[in-house]
């Protein structure tokens, strides 16, 4: 079958992208497969200046999932563009940069830097960061702020497609989706992690130095699928689904509810060649099911 999918100015060989923060800078996975066979690579959240992230411990395992509080450790945009991007097969596979900033102006500045960089195919705006300056409210939980960030990035992004990544920690995800769509997002990715916590009854301390962290992995798939389903129906921009995907069946579930593509997150940790194998497995499953093009399958969920 024809695995290609094109949307929001992105042209993908197949609908399998990697999720930000779970695939490093891409280079870490080179021993385990061919990066150019992936639909797209979304790299670790990048900020203007390098960030050290949170103290240890930063990760803990939960039932069918994990919590992380890495705190967006990254080498900063300059080092990324200089040392990492040139190693990626950006000529053949879209490289999408996940943006993290603490204020609207900073998002704008970061966008300026990336919009002129060779080899960047798109931006993913991470508006569910735990610490932001503006009013102490998370960008990802306030539709007005979310729209402002989106506008600021979109204005400076030039030809680069802008994808905005939604947080699931909200009462109504469609409100956020409409806000960022109105703000000019070319595309929406959802979901980021659910805020969670784990404690150790013996030490009487939280398992993460940061106390709370982001829950990801198979445990959250039902929540992710529900939100993608809602967002697809609420806005006209294409949606990229993620949250708990680990198998070809999972990928097709997200496409069935209407996602144009998916991102593979925590599953990359569970086995480093998961993303590469998934491309083949999705092809095989789709062919078995008699799907010849994604348009014939996407969003064909029958509702009662």
């Amino acid at each position, binding site marked *: 079958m024809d695995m290609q999918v094109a949307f929001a100015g992105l042209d993908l060989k197949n609908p399998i992208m990697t999720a930000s*923060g*779970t*695939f*490093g800078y891409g280079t*870490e*996975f080179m*021993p*385990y497969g061919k990066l150019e066979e992936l639909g797209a690579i979304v790299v670790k959240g990048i900020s203007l200046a390098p960030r*050290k*992230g949170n*103290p*240890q*411990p*930063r*990760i*803990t*395992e*939960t*039932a*069918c*999932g*994990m919590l*992380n509080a*890495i705190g967006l*450790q990254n080498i900063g945009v300059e080092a990324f563009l200089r040392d990492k991007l040139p190693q990626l097969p950006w000529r053949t596979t879209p490289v999408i940069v996940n943006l993290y900033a603490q204020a609207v102006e900073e998002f704008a500045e970061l966008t300026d830097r990336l919009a002129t960089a060779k080899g960047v195919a798109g931006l993913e705006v991470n508006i569910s960061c735990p610490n932001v300056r503006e009013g102490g409210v998370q960008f990802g939980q306030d539709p007005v702020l979310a729209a402002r960030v989106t506008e600021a990035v979109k204005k400076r992004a030039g030809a680069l497609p802008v994808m905005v990544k939604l947080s699931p920690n909200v009462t109504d995800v469609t409100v956020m989706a409409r806000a960022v769509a109105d703000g000019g997002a070319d595309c929406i990715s959802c979901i980021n992690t659910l805020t969670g916590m784990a404690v150790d009854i013996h030490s009487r301390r939280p398992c993460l*130095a940061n106390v709370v962290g982001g829950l990801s*992995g*198979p*445990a959250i798939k039902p929540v992710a699928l529900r939100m993608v389903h809602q967002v697809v129906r609420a806005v006209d921009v294409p949606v990229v689904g993620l949250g708990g995907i*680990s198998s070809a069946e999972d990928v097709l579930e997200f496409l069935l509810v209407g996602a144009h593509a998916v991102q593979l997150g*925590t599953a*990359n*940790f*569970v*086995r*480093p*060649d998961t993303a590469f194998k998934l491309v083949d497995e999705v092809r095989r499953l789709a062919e078995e099911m008699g799907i010849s093009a994604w348009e014939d399958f996407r969003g064909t969920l029958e509702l009662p």
Partner: protein
Amino acid sequence: MPEPQCLELRVTSLESPDNDLFYHLSLESPQWQWRPGQFAMLRPTSWRHEPLWARPFSISDQDTNGLHFFFQRMGSGTDLLSQLRPGDVVTVWGPLGNGFTISHTTPTMILAGGMGLAPFMGLIRHHPIPQNLELFFGHRQPLANYPFSEIEDRILAWQVREQGPEDLEKLFRAIEVKIKGYSIDGNLLACGPLPFLRRIQKLALDHNANTQLSLENRMACGVGACLGCTVPTKSGELVQACTQGPVFKADAVDLSGEL
């Protein structure tokens, strides 16, 4: 260093000297180029989503019989590993990490705490000049559970069983006596629990001994991507133990905090 691989390997044997806590796991040999201190991530294919992560284990040795690991049952993951049977399939990625920098011609002191013995088995077995190796081994469980007698046959080896707080002090005093000599022209290689490594680090810095510490941080991916296994360097950076380590020079890392 050769590139790591992700493979599915069959269990060839699983033996437990005490039928309870200690296990020697052998997998079909992937014929890896590896060095002591490198490790692999192990995840039986029968684990679906729980436990989610693979578990890291030092490559203990590799020979025609297979790839060998020693592990101790600690929690859910090692518990499930202890139930593997020959023929079961394990997803394995490795060899990972840097491993120890070894010079066969240099007198080398090995400092192992408990299962910290595991990475040194191959080194001890295959070292061309066994007289250049000396082992100090601290352990809690009965000695018979560790492959100590085999080691004793080949190299000079000391051991102390920790049954009270004083026992380990004996070991550290013995190490301190010897470390002076090694600090002139030798190497120290250490692996064990964090409190053990902290003690060794202090001794090493006090005596300015050329010392490598192998850390056992919690790991999810093993490939440098999750940033869960980071350790602070003396310069304040956070680096991945799985790719920049697990072996670090004693003066390079800050072990004062939790890992």
